[in-house]
């Protein structure tokens, strides 16, 4: 009889324990009722790509000196640099330049090593086409300026975490024009000069 009772007691204790911990877990779940959704409703809302975002590559034809460094640092030697040596001006003349974005992995090595800065990364990331050959951009297509999320009237721009004001952790909670975290170096200079008294 005692054995039976202790069994029942043990069972009841276990059940109470389980109910307690499940209740504790459910508290976390119900706590989410007072939180906002953090999902971004693309394409009505879009995240603003960061300043260093590595999107589609922009190319300036006139700056290029056909040195082919971009080809040498590319993991698969992707950029096609078509040039001819002009013996009159003793310089290489660029005829055409192309990068196939269907193959490019946007590592940014070409941009980093370009000696004349004729390559740069834009914030464009939606490159989908119906035909993959359309992704093979020539120097004309590479020279087009990117579109901006903030200038599209149909889109609500939302900032990413690193660009939000200090203390704000959700993009929805701040307007994208609000000042981001961190002071400007100029302000820090002014502050230190004010405290040291110069």
């Amino acid at each position: 009889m005692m054995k039976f009772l202790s069994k029942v007691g043990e069972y009841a204790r276990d059940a109470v324990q389980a109910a307690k911990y499940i209740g504790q877990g459910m508290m976390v779940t119900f706590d989410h009722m007072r939180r906002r959704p953090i999902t971004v409703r693309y394409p009505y809302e879009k995240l603003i790509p960061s300043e260093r975002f590595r999107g589609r590559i922009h190319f300036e034809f006139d700056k290029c000196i056909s040195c082919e460094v971009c080809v040498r640092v590319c993991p698969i030697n992707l950029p096609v640099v078509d040039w001819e040596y002009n013996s009159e001006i003793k310089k290489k003349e660029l005829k055409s330049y192309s990068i196939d974005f269907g193959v490019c992995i946007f590592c940014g090595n070409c941009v980093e090593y370009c000696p004349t800065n004729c390559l740069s990364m834009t914030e464009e990331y939606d490159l989908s086409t119906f035909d993959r050959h359309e992704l093979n951009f020539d120097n004309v297509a590479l020279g087009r300026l990117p579109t901006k999320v903030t200038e599209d009237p149909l889109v609500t721009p939302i900032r990413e975490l690193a660009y939000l004001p200090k203390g704000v952790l959700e993009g929805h909670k701040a307007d994208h024009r609000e000042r981001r975290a961190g002071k400007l170096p100029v302000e820090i200079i002014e502050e230190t000069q004010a405290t040291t008294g110069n």
Partner: protein
Amino acid sequence: MVMIETKAERMVINMGPHHPSMHGVLRLIVTLDGENIVDCEPVLGYLHRSMEKIAENRTIVQYLPYVTRWDYLATMFTEAITVNAPEKLADVPVPRRASYIRMMMLELSRIASHLLWLGTFIADIGAQTPFFYVFREREMIYDLFEAATGMRMMHNYFRIGGVAADLPYGWLDKCEDYCKYQLEKIDEYERLITNNPIFRKRVEGVGKISREDAINWGLSGPMLRASGVKWDLRKVDHYELYDELDWEVQWATEGDCLARYLVRVGEMRQSCKMILQAIKQIPGGSYENLEAQRVLAGPKSEWNSLDYQFISKKPSPTFKIPAGEHYVRVEAPKGELGIYLIGENNVFPWRWKIRPPGFINLQVLPQLVRGMKIADIMAILGSVDIIMGEVDR
């Protein structure tokens, strides 16, 4: 009492290579006796991309974008080891500031990896909700990465002798915000998961591995630490500047799935603390402060010395790996990630052997699942934390 005994034939079933709850393309051939597992044989190689061979005709600069594809959930670690190997061979100095930036990036990456592990592990066991919670937090880490490196996962940020660029304005402030937030959220996960009776029943005493076995199988990372070995390469090898931070190695002695869970959750807390310390200790402080100090003190100030740079010298595209060979390792979230590098004074390495933690931790799986029930396979496989990208390379 009379029991009716039925003896069924053994059954061989195939799990994978694309089972939805499998971690990537892993195939398991499981021999079953009813619901008990008699044997299990993992079949690998579905994601093999010859990463080691590719390294042999790429310069380090060219190879760096590839490495984030080994372990695509702890991307910073693959980059770290890829630059550490030639760095150590060629004795390239790393400025203190660069080292601090690296540590912060590595620890953020560790949190991201453990978060995703937590989500999938719990989802394997049958709880779907935490999966969404961890993705919310992981997204923030990736936002921080995107701001500093330009890409969320395929960063290409580490360079021989430092990192590619200094941190952007306000990054440290937001990183601090994030770490404080993350510490709260880890408490929240623990409230949700740790004492949950269903979770406890599924993981306690499941997939046990003893201390001796763990060492004999060559396990590393949380797998080894959960079995009672206090072995963390950050403490053992003293690489980067981890010695300047105050933190503890997380370990447990039980060696079951629950211990591995607790070790990883503990590591996330430690990583948050380490980042918070690093934010305070980084030489020069935030980038905006460093810029201001440089302007104030003029061109010949100490603020322009090596310690305050983010890179010692920009690596040339024709950086030559000196002749010689050595083994370099870092403590990745999954375990010991190592490179055995042989150079021959050429821009390409002669041999680039990768020691992926997932590959070696996966070997122990058949031993762990033998004798367990078939439903435990997912719990055990989840607790091993494998990423097929690095297992097959």
